[in-house]
């Protein structure tokens, strides 16, 4: 299946896919983009995802957001999907989230950073910097940037970003979330990416 076809399949199933994560907080997908060979495609934000067709998918254009998406694909060669989302908890977080959950550290990276996009001139570099060695970042305007090797990977990054943000915010009522040692968090991310994630194919 091509990445473009995977995008359509994902869009058709998005309601069912999100059903299992109800308690994690609401994730609304605003933009989707995929790399397919040498081409970059996107789904404009006004399309209805469950009824998406091939005709709804366009080549990446020249808007500021399109330039941001293209820059992410250019910088991160293994990334084939970028999702731009609005999220119930993540979009409201205004500070870097340290590693507070093992699954966050494994999949998203050692922290979730905030990219200050208030100055349009350097917004792209700020987002790229916030995403460095990471799979999700939150923009200061509330947009969340979630990336992955596949559409499914990017979507689970979005869901996990929401779970992490909810845990960070709600744990304040319990005296605050306690961070894991950053080196251990990094080691877990490496173990997950280079060993555990390969079990899906190898452990048969």
């Amino acid at each position, binding site marked *: 299946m091509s990445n473009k076809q995977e995008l359509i399949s994902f869009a058709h199933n998005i309601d069912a896919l999100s059903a299992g*994560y109800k*308690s994690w907080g609401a994730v609304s997908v605003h933009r989707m983009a995929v790399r397919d060979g040498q081409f970059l495609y996107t789904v404009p934000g006004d399309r209805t995802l469950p009824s998406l067709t091939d005709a709804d998918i366009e080549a990446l254009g020249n808007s500021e957001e399109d330039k941001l998406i293209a820059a992410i694909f250019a910088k991160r060669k293994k990334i084939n999907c970028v999702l731009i989302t609005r999220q119930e908890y993540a979009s409201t977080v205004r500070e870097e989230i340290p590693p*507070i959950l093992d*699954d966050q550290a494994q999949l998203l990276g050692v922290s979730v950073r905030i990219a200050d996009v208030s100055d349009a001139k350097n917004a792209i570099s700020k987002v790229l910097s916030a995403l460095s060695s990471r799979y999700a970042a939150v923009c200061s305007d509330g947009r969340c940037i979630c990336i992955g090797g596949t559409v499914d990977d990017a979507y689970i990054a979005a869901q996990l970003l929401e779970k992490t943000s909810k845990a960070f915010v709600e744990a304040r009522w319990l005296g605050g979330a306690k961070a894991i040692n950053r080196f251990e968090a990094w080691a877990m991310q490496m173990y997950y990416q280079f060993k555990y994630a390969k079990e899906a194919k190898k452990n048969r």
Partner: protein
Amino acid sequence: MMNIEQARVEVCSSGKRLLHEGLVARTWGNVSVRVSDTEMVITPSGRPYTELTPDDMVLVNFYTLAFEGKIKPSSELKLHCEVYKNRKHIEAVIHTHQMYASIVAAAQKDVVVLDPAHQAILGAAVIKAAPYALPNSKKITFGTEKAIESANAALMANHGCVCIGRNLEDVFSVCKTLEEACALYISSLKSKAA
């Protein structure tokens, strides 16, 4: 006690149920059932629940950790083994990364179980949080096993929780009740602060 074939079917379908109920995502979490005084059937390591079949479930000796076949068992099998070795009446174990338990676990706090109905299902008025340790380490295995004490669940700091019971249906009930108890505990702290 279930026979091995029944256990493979039940453990497999319980893995999918974990996913559908939002208790885990992807390949995280694990499920096991005791099938004898020395063996359990457990979900495999690193495989997405959606593609699992009963044949992918792994039979493990919980004293020797030896397993049947080529498919490796869940990397967190040692925690399941310790539970079965030390609690002869326990026949099912589920480890999840469920939302509200994860919030309390991220704060490294015990859960004060406020509702007596929840206490009856969870088997304690306080559900303890095991200290943080790396996944699959001896420290997390023994720390969590100790934190369960006489309850039917324990939190695992910055990680998730483990729930135990006499059968899988009981354990799902413990998972759900723990989630409700954690949510209630957080709500009560919000009310006090308001």
